[in-house]
């Protein structure tokens, strides 16, 4: 029951209620800019691009929210928020915000919302964003749509957040009609990265947190950074080759890896492949795995379920290899090949290797 109902609540949604009086003052679009250890998560800039479009459509301002400990890097982040489209930057600098912890971050963001009253609040669907969004929405008792794949505002200026529904074939559009702010999270790479405009500037609004370290229960003892090596960087790869259940057994994924290696790209897979234990979870592509936006995406033996589609739709060129001419993937691929992936993948690897002057990796 924790997920959005799969049937539209026709009666209730159809019944147009006036927005309660005290919510009418809520205006402007906000994006929470995720700064962890001095670095902005790219999803925040992607959201700024999307937030700018929503704000322009509504005829309101776009604001960024920056939380952290006082540092030169944080000042730089504030300037960057203007470059990425912010008219206003709300900033809360406090020593207790040096590293992410739920309690002070929830307090800072809810206080800011209650003071300045935005109509829309967007966060990245990262481990940080989801941790924070869940607490803030519950504190404010408002609606929150997770992992939206499309954001828009309708004629009534209500935020329309679209996401796949359970089952694999349908999308649903979710609204928060009678509460403010309307909150949504979006996964990294779902929205395009906007071009920064370094001539833009904006206004800065300060906020004080008013918490002491003694008030905060949880302490950060250490941060163990991931080893940079051998980790998949699917989300930001230029070329991705993926295999699905059509590859039939784990050995055949060598064909996928070999093509990816020849192209200097990353390899990935669909969810059932991970569930079978044929590939690690970090290689999964789709709504619940990595969202990718490469220049070239080659999908072999993948049927093209909606949860997969939403994770790859931002690719410049999608090439699908599938034995079934009616596979859903051909509805959104640019190039389609109705053939056995087990023969096409090695042939394609050889063709690229010949053309690129690379020796085909031992076949």
């Amino acid at each position: 029951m924790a997920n959005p109902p799969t049937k539209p609540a026709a009666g209730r949604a159809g019944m147009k209620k006036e927005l309660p009086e005290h919510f009418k003052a809520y205006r402007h679009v906000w994006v929470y800019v995720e700064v962890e250890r001095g670095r902005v998560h790219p999803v925040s800039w992607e959201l700024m691009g999307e937030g700018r479009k929503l704000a322009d459509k509504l005829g309101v301002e776009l604001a960024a929210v920056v939380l952290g400990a006082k540092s030169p890097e944080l000042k730089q982040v504030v300037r960057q928020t203007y470059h990425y489209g912010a008219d206003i930057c709300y900033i809360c600098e406090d020593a207790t915000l040096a590293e992410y912890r739920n309690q002070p971050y929830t307090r800072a963001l809810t206080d800011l919302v209650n003071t300045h009253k935005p109509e829309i609040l967007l966060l990245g669907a990262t481990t940080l964003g989801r941790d924070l969004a869940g607490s803030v929405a519950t504190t404010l008792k408002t609606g929150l749509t997770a992992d939206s794949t499309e954001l828009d505002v309708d004629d009534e200026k209500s935020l329309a957040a679209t996401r796949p529904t359970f089952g694999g074939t349908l999308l649903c559009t979710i609204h928060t009609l009678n509460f403010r702010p309307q909150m949504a999270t979006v996964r990294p790479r779902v929205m395009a990265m906007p071009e920064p405009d370094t001539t833009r500037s904006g206004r800065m609004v300060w906020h004080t947190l008013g918490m002491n370290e003694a008030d905060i229960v949880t302490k950060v003892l250490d941060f163990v950074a991931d080893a940079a090596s051998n980790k998949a960087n699917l989300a930001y790869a230029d070329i991705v080759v993926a295999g699905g259940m059509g590859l039939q057994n784990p050995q055949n994924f060598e064909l996928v890896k070999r093509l990816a290696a020849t192209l200097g790209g990353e390899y990935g897979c669909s969810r059932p492949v991970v569930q079978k234990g044929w590939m690690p979870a970090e290689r999964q592509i789709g709504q619940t795995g990595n969202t990718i936006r490469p220049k070239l995406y080659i999908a072999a033996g993948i049927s093209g379920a909606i949860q997969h589609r939403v994770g790859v739709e931002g690719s410049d060129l999608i090439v699908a290899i599938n034995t079934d001419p009616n596979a859903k993937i051909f509805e959104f691929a640019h190039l389609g090949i109705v053939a056995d992936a087990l023969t096409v993948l090695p042939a394609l690897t050889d063709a690229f290797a010949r053309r690129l002057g690379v020796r085909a990796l031992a076949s």
Partner: protein
Amino acid sequence: MHIVVCIKQVPDSAQIRVHPVTNTIMRQGVPTIINPYDLFALEEAMRLRDEFGGRVTVLCMGPPMAEDALRRALGLGADQAVLITDRRFAGSDTLATSFALATALETLGKEHPIDIVFTGKQTIDGDTAQVGPGIACRLELNQLTYVAAIDSLDKAKGEIVARRRAEGGVQVLKSKLPCLITMLEGANTLRRGSVQDMLRAARAKVTVWSAEDAGVGDLLKCGLRGSPTVVKKVFAPQPREEPAEMVAVEGKTPAQIGDAILDLVFARQPKLEAELTA
């Protein structure tokens, strides 16, 4: 120690079939399972119980048939099971769900104060990861999400040290009980229930609570009425406007097919060819 694990019964997604014509989910005959992520939470709870003593209660909100999921958890070694089920919970979004579960947890805690609430990282059907933080927030529990491992627990001091998955690394956090932990997949290996547990589970009584039994006073905060989000539209994704260009394969050798694909790829992405050959 009293540890409560919130679990959800979900359809086995590997077995979901979609009607080819109507595009609707064919639920009939689809087996249900405990949300796989919740099993890591259950195992961790039982591990702590085995080490520090106490009991593990499993709590589930769902239709009457969700009793199966709870019985399965008892078979794996949980001590007590509570199902909150009420038609008035139907249509709950994450805010209404966390309200119902938090209320039931408060009621449970009156009997035996709760030290830790566990949930899975997220469910496989809704994927929101919002209910755990929602419960923590409502009950003012210290919130530890995406926990990969619990390093230590000091029962006397009420202190816990846990490793939390963050972007680009792992945070080692020291916090206090009572807390809410959402457990990451792969954090442990689920035990196989003992024969005694299986036998006990078959006979055990699952406590079934209505909204009132669970302690819900304000029914307006439940179900559809307590859910600020509204699904306005459900629709099938549309094919891309420009249909896929199909590469002719009839009568061609694999090598010819390979070359044909490559030509088309480079024709559409000339920059890519330059980058790759550079």
